[in-house]
Structure formats: C-alpha cells, structure tokens
C-alpha cells in the first residue's frame, strides 16, 4: 500500500515535470501561487496524477487542496480506499 512519504515523493516528481524549473517543490508549496497554475491547469494536472497513481480524483476535492501536502493527503486517502 502507498504510504504518505512515497506519495509525496512521487507527486513532487510529477509536479516538477508539469512546472519544470519554476520552484523547489515541498510540502508547503502552494499549487496556485507558487507554481503559478490557474484553476484549469490544476484540473488538467489532476488527470496526470490520476494516471500516475491509478486513482480517480473527484473535482470536488479542489476547494480543500491548496498545497502539495493537501493534495498528497487526498491521493493517499483515495489510493487507500480504491
């Protein structure tokens, strides 16, 4: 089963390919402000992350996701429930 540290590492790697060279990615990185993504780009980012972890991420989680940590926690939860 996927543990949080592994999710965080894989997610950070995925984000680095999506927003290359822009910023150092850590738990507290803000998806909108630090990565300079708009809401549509975040939704498209989710499509990639879904494939990476073989889960489906409901759009409705987005209001609760601000940082990389928020997203990693959601992924860990969804992967656990899948």
């Amino acid at each position, binding site marked *: 089963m996927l543990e949080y540290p592994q999710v965080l590492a894989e997610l950070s790697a995925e984000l680095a390919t999506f927003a290359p060279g822009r910023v150092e990615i850590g738990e507290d990185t803000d998806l909108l402000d630090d990565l300079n993504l708009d809401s549509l780009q975040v939704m498209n980012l989710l499509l990639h992350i879904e494939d990476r972890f073989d889960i489906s991420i409901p*759009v409705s989680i987005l209001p609760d996701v601000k940082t990389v940590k928020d997203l990693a926690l959601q992924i860990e939860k969804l992967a656990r429930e899948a």
Partner: protein
Amino acid sequence: MGLFDKFQGLAAARRELAALGIDPFGVEIERIISPTEGIIHGRRTILAGTNNYLGLTFNPECIAAAHRALDAEGTGTTGSRMANGSYSGHRRLEEELAAFYGMRDAIVFSTGYQANLGTLAGLTGPNDVVLLDADCHASIYDGCRLAGAEVIRFRHNNADDLAKRMRRLGARAADTLIVIEGIYSMLGDRAPLKDIVDVKREHGGYLLVDEAHSLGVLGERGRGLVEEMGVLADADFIVGTFSKSLGGAGGFCVSDLPALDLVRYSSRPYIFTASPSPATIASTRQALSILSAGRDLRARLRGNYERLHAGLTAMGYTLGASPSPVIAVVLGDRVEALQFWSQLLQRGVYVNLMLPPATPNGVSLIRCSVSAAHTPEQLDAVCAAFADLRASCGVVAAENSAGT
C-alpha cells in the same frame, strides 16, 4: 479580505482592455437588421458569431406564431410552472420534443444554461458519480456542483480515458452518468460518440449528450450527433437549447426513461424560476417544426460552413477542427488575438473572441459561427477580411494544433 478584493484580477483585465481600446466582451449591436447583419459602432456589420445556425430568428412563420401568442396569451407567465401553473404551450412543446426524438417525455427549461443546470442538479446527488468530458460547458460543471455530485473528468474526446475511469469505479460504474457534448462550443469538434457508446455498453452507466450546437445541424432530421452516428437509442438523456438553431430562448431535456418526470420535481432550476413566455414557446414550436422538416436549411448550412472552412484553410490559418458550424481560428497570445478580433470588427465582421481559461489548452481563439442564412457574398466578405489581415498584419497563426 474585503467584499470586492476578489475582483482585483478582473479589474486588471478590464483595465488592460481599456488601455488597448478593445472591448470584445461588451459589444453592443446597436441595431439588428437580419440573422446575419447588424449595426455595430455605427457600421453595417456581418454577424458571424451569433450561433444562429439556421437563421430562424427572422423567419416569418416563427414571428407570426410569436405575434399570435403574444396577442392571445400576453407578455409573460409571471411565475413558475410548479407553483403558478403551466400554459398549454409548455406541455405541447414538451410533447413535440419527445415525439421529435421518439422518446417518452421532455422537460422544458427557461434557458439553455438552466437545461443543463436543472437536468444535472435534478438527476444527480451527493452519492452519484458524474464522468465529464474535460471540455464540457460551464453549465454542466455548475449543474454537478449544485447537485453536490462526485465529478470525475476524463480527457477530452478520449474514450479510452473514459473506459479507464469507468474501470476504476468498479461496481459504481453501472450507475454513473457520462456527460458529453455533440459539438464542442470552443473548437467545433465532435465527440467520438460510437467509441463512447461502446464504453457505456461495456461498463454500464447512463449517457447524457448535450446537443446545444448540433440540434438542427447534424443528422438526417436534425436530431444531432446521436442521429448522425446512429446511436439515438443509446443516449439516455439529450439536452438541447432553443437559443441557437431554434432562434428563441430556453432549453430542454428529453429521455425515454420514466424517471425523467421525477427529475422535474427535484430540479431547483426548474422549480424556482419563471416559465418561458408564450411568444418564446410559440416561436420555438414553429421553429422545431421547420427544423424537423427542413433538410434544405441543413444542406445550406453545411455548404456555408464548408465554404468558410475551406477558405480559411487555404489562407494557411490553423483551425480547431474539421468543418462544422463552429469554426475556430487558433491564434497565439491574447494580445494578438485581441487585436485580430478588433481588426475584423473594423472590417465589418463580427466574430467571437475566446481567451484562456475559457479555451482548451490555453490557446486564444477567434470563433466564427456560420448560419444557413449567410449569403455566398457575405462569406466571401468574411474570407476577404481574414485574407486582408493575414496579408497586412503579418499575423502568424499558431503552429501548434489545438490538441484535436
């Protein structure tokens, strides 16, 4: 955080437009002359951005029907159908829509936006999963949000991506609602409907097709992409609008499932709004009868959009999709697109400007919509304006395709 702080981004965007002296989102058509002509900035202008696909807004029979209803039934209904009663015309239109599609029943909504909002909010709830094509219209997203449904997106026009997400759902797939559009409003591309129907046949679930831009446009009898692809029976719900090919305002959902009638009683956008006015209903009924009989209008429309598409292609423009009544020219950055749009208007051609994030893949689009009522001379004039701009402004269309 102040009440108006959230508008800072919008205010900056408005200031940018004001500095450029271009206002694509506040165009006033000072006088409407015909389905394809109006006066804008005091100048006679060809309208090629009004979704008036069959040109029925000035059809004499539709106008006469609206006049009769106005004289006989008054200006408005002054209330909602559930609280204040339906007029006979509301029910007749629902019956006529159901008969048009060969389905059990239909619900009429007051706007096209509300047709999606009301159908999705009435049909689904917090425990339901809705699988949306990523490029679905805002009204579809908003309907799901109002419902509190679990929304999962799949990659635009990608049936394999849909199948992957259906597989992940396991047993829940059988009750999932899949939502797609016949023709997508930004690029004018069509859904791979047969492939999507195959996914539904394999995994179960229900299929809702929004035919807002394809009603009256595609199919032998104008019933949209579902008819053209021969999969009408696989569509559980079809949503459409009266405000494009039918030249009125309002929308509908049609279905062969008996439960549709219950959607009516759970749909807040249906319950808590005033019903369409008698004149609107009367012109829509007349337009529907013309649309279903009118193969000549569809043939003329097709000839027109193929003519414009071929003309723009020959000039070297990058277009969003194969020919359809929605023809999107893909441009580079937003300032280039803004200036291009403004230059077209100065040459007497009104089209739509679409900028990110409303567009797919962050592209800027000049979106034309073609009408059966456009004359060959008008389409040649539109082409001439595009050709002139290509020559005089050195505009280079984006080399990258729009992902279609």
